[in-house]
């Protein structure tokens, strides 16, 4: 039997409120399946389970506010029996609090986490709950290094910043959709304050001609029904992912004092939630997907972001962020990095501007791409290489 715990759905989340269960005891669940909806201060998130099994007991009631790491449900392996309760199981009397973890869950109960003794001691010193922490040691055991990384990721805010006080937690609990904008504002404030406090940003920008990309895309879209139309924003996202593959130093996380490069680019797309702030859920492994797939996924992502039904993995695993303020007519955007990412790419307005081509001024559609990157991880040289690669990819839209 394994325990399903509330995962951290973002660097600043330490608790959430269960809105509803989408599974019941006895249901077969698969890795990646959405099993619950949890309200964070940012959004109602579809929470996925990260292993296969059969739902045993649901231990959290809808409406309950729980900390990250709290055991929400027990999951049985296929063929495993429900641990025998004092009486015949499952039929819980309505309204009765379920599964208070009184006493020890050993014996037929919970599986003990694989944690090295040294990691266990360090976690105790740090006061860290290790449920949900990914183990990288032998047999997937949680090691000292894993604990240190988790500790850094959940580092307490420094004095003088927005640590939630008891009264703020109470306000979160009482939050209704109408109150969300203010709460989201606070969450953004905390993340961005931390970014500006901790990350030494450097900024670069380049104006990129898009004549070829515009012509190619216009022709491509003209030949297709409206349902298969692709936006320039998707072309830009794919170009970013391709450029990152060539300049990987901007793609990953800065944790525990070291940069951990990510093997593929999960690109966080900044999505404005009309009147209610901003989220940046991830499109996964963008470089590996064709434009049509990306267009479909982006449409789906935006729709779900606006209806507050994002998935947990989308909100927590972006390895870089792209923000596009061109729609609003902005010339250039210089972003703020979302920790623990190390870079944010910005696109301004796509407009026809005077541009020198072959020694003569011509009217050319251009866009200004910008990069804000973490100077602890890379220098301007790396950033310049990235923008140059991005420039080149946008001249070859047919190869994206």
């Amino acid at each position: 039997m394994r325990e399903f715990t509330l995962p951290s759905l973002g660097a600043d989340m330490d608790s959430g409120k269960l809105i509803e269960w989408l599974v019941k005891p006895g249901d077969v669940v698969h890795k990646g399946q959405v099993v619950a909806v949890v309200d964070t201060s940012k959004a109602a998130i579809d929470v996925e389970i990260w292993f296969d099994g059969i739902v045993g007991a649901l231990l959290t009631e809808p409406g309950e506010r729980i900390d990250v790491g709290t055991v929400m449900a027990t999951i049985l392996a296929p063929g495993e029996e429900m641990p025998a309760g004092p009486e015949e199981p499952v039929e819980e009397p309505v309204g009765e609090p379920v599964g208070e973890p009184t006493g020890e869950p050993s014996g037929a109960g919970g599986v003990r986490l694989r944690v090295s003794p040294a990691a266990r001691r360090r976690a105790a010193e740090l006061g860290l709950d290790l449920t949900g922490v990914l183990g990288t040691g032998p047999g997937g055991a949680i090691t000292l290094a894993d604990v240190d990384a988790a500790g850094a990721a959940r580092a307490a805010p420094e004095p003088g910043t927005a640590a939630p006080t008891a009264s703020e937690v109470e306000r979160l609990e009482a939050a209704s959709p109408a109150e969300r904008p203010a709460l989201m504002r606070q969450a953004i404030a905390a993340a961005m304050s931390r970014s500006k406090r901790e990350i030494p940003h450097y900024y670069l920008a380049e104006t990129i001609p898009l004549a070829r990309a515009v012509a190619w895309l216009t022709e491509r879209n003209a030949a297709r029904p409206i349902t298969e139309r692709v936006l320039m924003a998707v072309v830009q996202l794919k170009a970013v992912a391709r450029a990152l593959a060539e300049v990987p130093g901007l793609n990953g996380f800065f944790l525990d004092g070291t940069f951990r490069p990510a093997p593929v680019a999960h690109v966080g797309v900044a999505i404005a939630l009309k009147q209610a702030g901003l989220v940046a859920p991830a499109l996964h492994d963008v470089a590996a997907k064709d434009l049509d797939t990306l267009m479909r996924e982006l449409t789906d992502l935006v729709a779900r972001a606006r209806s507050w039904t994002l998935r947990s993995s989308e909100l927590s695993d972006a390895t870089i962020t792209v923000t596009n303020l061109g729609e609003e007519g902005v010339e250039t955007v210089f972003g703020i990095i979302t920790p623990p990412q190390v870079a944010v790419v910005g696109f301004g307005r796509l407009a026809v501007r005077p541009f020198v081509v072959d020694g003569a001024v011509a009217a050319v559609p251009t866009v200004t791409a910008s990069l804000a990157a973490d100077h602890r991880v890379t220098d301007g040289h790396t950033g310049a290489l990235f923008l140059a690669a991005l420039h080149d990819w946008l001249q070859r839209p047919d190869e994206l």
Partner: protein
Amino acid sequence: MDDTELRDAVVAELRRIAPEVDADDLDDRRPLRRQVDLDSLDWLRFLLGLHDRLGVEIPEADYPQLSTLGEVVGYLRARL
């Protein structure tokens, strides 16, 4: 379908993309994307919705003819 019904259908589709829109506040003669905060993806989803509902295919090249709500209704009327 008369013009009022057609306008109601367009506004309903618009509200699916931007629920905050109040139909009575929309000015049929002012540019739509100025009045309602629509980015290019919202716009495409809006046109996709009209396509599903009314069966009208709107090529990209025609976007400039669809600036105001009045123009959108007129464009659709001519093609229904």
